[in-house]
């Protein structure tokens, strides 16, 4: 069916221009991916602004949920990077809210999952990487480079070890972004594939994939929240480098 112009399970990841715009030879059109990123930021900002508008000693439901999110990220940051890392809290909280809302908005029917593209997630991870490297250099100076030399290694192995350690360090933002994008892509593709079984199996057999689909949709919502949690937790682990040196 897909060959003669039907729906492919991968059609949902297609990026379409909503508005053509070219500045100085660069194509910076407003795409559906950008729309859902803007929506995720708007949702997060307006939710938090609304929730904290009338702060009360006995909080209402909105305020409780906002405070829960705040404490959740704060505990995660303190646990993984220590209390000195709290100056990076705005970054960690923004990352968490953005990834969480982009993932959850992707679960709305007919919507687009912005975090299913490696470019989106890699941009987030690259921001984090640049912040960590700059902050670590500002705090430790050139001593920061000592994390690339494992202590107790023989001197003649040092050149090789430094290169390997450098690669292991450079791949952290890549693995962070691939993990999120691969999870979102795999989950959404699986949903579409299973949904494709329903109509061909007809009234008799179609109920089984439909049941699976309902269960998997719930599971995907769980994965969306879990991946936002994992992304932020690893971000906190990497931020701990900016606070203290590890060997």
């Amino acid at each position, binding site marked *: 069916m897909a060959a003669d112009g039907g729906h492919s399970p991968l059609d949902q990841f297609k990026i379409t221009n909503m508005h053509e715009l070219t500045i100085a030879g660069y194509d910076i059109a407003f795409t559906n991916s950008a729309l859902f990123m803007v929506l995720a930021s708007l949702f997060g900002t307006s939710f938090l602004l609304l929730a904290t508008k009338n702060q009360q000693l006995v909080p209402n439901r909105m305020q409780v949920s906002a405070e829960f999110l705040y404490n959740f990220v704060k505990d995660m940051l303190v646990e993984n990077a220590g209390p000195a890392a709290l100056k990076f809290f705005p970054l960690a909280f923004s990352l968490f809210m953005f990834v969480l809302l982009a993932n959850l908005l992707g679960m709305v029917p007919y919507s687009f999952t912005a975090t299913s593209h490696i470019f989106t997630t890699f941009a987030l991870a690259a921001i984090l990487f640049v912040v960590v490297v700059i902050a670590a250099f500002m705090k430790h100076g050139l001593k920061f480079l000592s994390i690339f030399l494992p202590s107790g290694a023989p001197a003649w192995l040092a050149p090789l070890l430094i*290169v*390997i*350690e*450098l*690669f*292991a360090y*450079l*791949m*952290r933002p*890549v*693995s962070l972004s*691939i*993990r999120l994008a*691969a*999870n979102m892509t795999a989950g959404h593709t699986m949903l579409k594939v299973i949904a494709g079984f329903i109509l061909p199996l007809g009234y008799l057999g179609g109920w089984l994939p439909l049941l699976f689909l309902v269960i998997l949709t719930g599971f995907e919502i769980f994965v969306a929240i879990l991946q936002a949690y994992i992304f932020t937790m690893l971000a906190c682990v990497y931020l701990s480098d900016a606070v203290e040196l590890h060997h």
Partner: protein
Amino acid sequence: MTNNIQEKLDKLENNIDSLKNKTKKTGEGKNNTAGNMRYVMQITVDLLSGLAVGAFIGYEIDKYFETKPLYFIVFMILGMAGGFLNLIRNLNK
């Protein structure tokens, strides 16, 4: 009367113990499956991203110095080594 209560309490304790053991066992089994899935994802992502970083840097250097396959291959192997290093660290955590 006291004897009777003591007997009942002993019986209850035994019951609780056996139930606890049961849930412990099934819980462990569940954790193992979930834990294994986590490792699968971890291994895939770590090995792949190490390769990708090495290959990308090698490819760019090759393009710059026009030494076509040399640095691509060397850096891909080094990136793989970095991937294994990260993998070992993550799994030992």
